[in-house]
């Protein structure tokens, strides 16, 4: 069954979506969409460095993503520029440097479009092992860190005062983001990884009564978007990443239709009941 490239792509894509769901919720709750984008864009620099130094692609992409996020945190601490401006600088510089480096390396032949927008044809059985293995690590880490992650998202001060370690939690979160970007790159492509993190989470918001359910729904909605998008990609011969994102967007738009979205979370508030 794994001989079929399309089945491979489906298995890999669903693995990525299940992993991205819970992490995407935190990206939304912590308002880190642009931050995720910056890390993802730096992945191309990781690709270029991996080709140049002939090191493993995954390790190189992961390393660069971690480095860029560390640099961002350091720059933020100096408070010379707003976080927004810093993200804009780092995000596009990392992407541009990656593109320039790739262009310099005339001796390697590289399918830039596949890296930027994903390529279902490129998924190998080894990639599947990597995605599901890496994904299992990420999901296990999120389950293990769940309470401190939620608590420090609500308030770092409260988490710290009540015996948690938000700084360490944040560090783990960065590492998990970098790992997801490294494993998701092949399916959705560098430009669109953040979309796979954010859109399913945003869609899940309407149907969720707790952070836990939102994480689960985000995974399921993401998986559905991957399946829909890959079928579309196959049918219309479109790049896999954009097709998945379009499918996710359709789910999001559907969730905005009032008839679908009315749940416990949308119940009128119990305002004015108290005497």
């Amino acid at each position, binding site marked *: 069954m794994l001989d079929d490239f399309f089945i491979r792509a489906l298995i890999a894509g669903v693995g990525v979506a299940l992993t991205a769901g819970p992490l995407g919720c935190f990206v939304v709750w912590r308002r880190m969409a642009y931050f995720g984008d910056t890390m993802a864009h730096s992945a191309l620099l990781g690709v270029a460095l991996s080709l140049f130094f002939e090191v493993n692609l995954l390790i190189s992409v992961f390393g660069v993503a971690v480095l860029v996020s560390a640099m961002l945190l350091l720059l933020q601490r100096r408070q010379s520029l707003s976080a927004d401006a810093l993200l804009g600088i780092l995000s596009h510089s990392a992407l541009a440097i990656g593109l320039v480096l790739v262009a310099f390396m005339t001796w390697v032949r590289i399918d830039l479009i596949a890296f930027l927008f994903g390529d279902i044809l490129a998924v190998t059985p080894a990639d599947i092992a990597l995605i599901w293995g890496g994904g299992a690590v990420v999901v296990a880490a999120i389950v293990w860190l769940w*309470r401190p992650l939620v608590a420090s*998202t609500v308030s770092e001060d409260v988490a710290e005062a009540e015996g*948690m370690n938000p700084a360490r939690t944040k560090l783990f979160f960065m590492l998990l983001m970098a790992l997801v970007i490294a494993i998701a790159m092949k399916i959705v492509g560098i430009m669109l990884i953040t979309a796979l993190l954010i859109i399913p989470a945003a869609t899940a918001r309407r149907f969720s*009564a707790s952070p836990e359910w939102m994480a689960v729904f985000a995974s399921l909605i993401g998986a559905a978007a991957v399946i829909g998008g890959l079928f579309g990609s196959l049918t219309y011969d479109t790049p896999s990443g954009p097709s998945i994102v379009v499918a996710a967007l359709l789910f999001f738009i559907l969730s905005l239709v009032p008839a679908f979205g009315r749940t416990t979370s949308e119940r009128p*508030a*119990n305002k004015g*009941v108290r005497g």
Partner: protein
Amino acid sequence: MLMNSRASSAPGKQAGEAETLVSLENAGIRRDGRWLVRGVDFSIARGEVVTLIGPNGAGKSTTAKMAIGVLKTDEGKITRAKSLRIGYVPQKLAIDWTMPLTVRRLMTLTGPLNEAETTSALEATGIPHLAGSEVRHLSGGEFQRALLARAIARKPDLMVLDEPVQGVDFAGEAALYDLIRTIRNATGCGILMISHDLHMVMAGTDTVICLNGHVCCRGTPEVVSQSSDYAKLFGGNARALAVYNHHHDHTHLPDGRVRHADGSITEHCHPDDGHHHGDQGHDHHRHDDHAHHHHGAHEGEGSRHA
């Protein structure tokens, strides 16, 4: 009621030899070359209520965060009892509305609770009916009650309450201060409270620490309210007001109309007039020492450079 402040805060509540939960020695925090607070010295014992008062920017929240280890000191030393369990109600808490968080889920933010513990804490703060409501739909006062319930339910050794009753209506305010005292009496926890709402807070307090970048004065509410540093910090009327300190920018005329600071006269006073509490603004005129109201005297919070 807490309003009869002098009687309820009589000496005898002093913690004496009770176990010290936190002690600060010469503690200070510096940011961008400026000391936010410096030379802060105090300790909180089990069963003791310590209140930090002071004008805006006096470093009250900074001091509290320093005491519980959220901010690291740049100078001095902080000693906390081993495995000290803290319940913290911060001054501000902005929850992104994209997180679906019910009051019940908020209760277990930093540690597990069973249903009974959750319910009894919510009942204590008067919001059991809101357990299933989303936090973002709560009013300011309801949210404060939820935060207070969360801190209580943890059964902490030390509760740190940074303006715990902000946005709570006037009747509720007194009830919550009562509740805080009841919890102290029942559990023997220590309480570090921050307020600039002097007339309410000083009542239920063992030790008042008057802060303005440094400790200006300290002691029982009686001692502090008589000290000259306190008078300097909160204006000349503060001493005469004793443990009450009340400021208005408008005067209630005998016929029920209201004269404002700018001289205009209206039928009623408005919610944004000076120091009214919620929509029950006029309740505070039932104070027994009514004579001490100095309408129009606008001092206190504004006089930090006195």
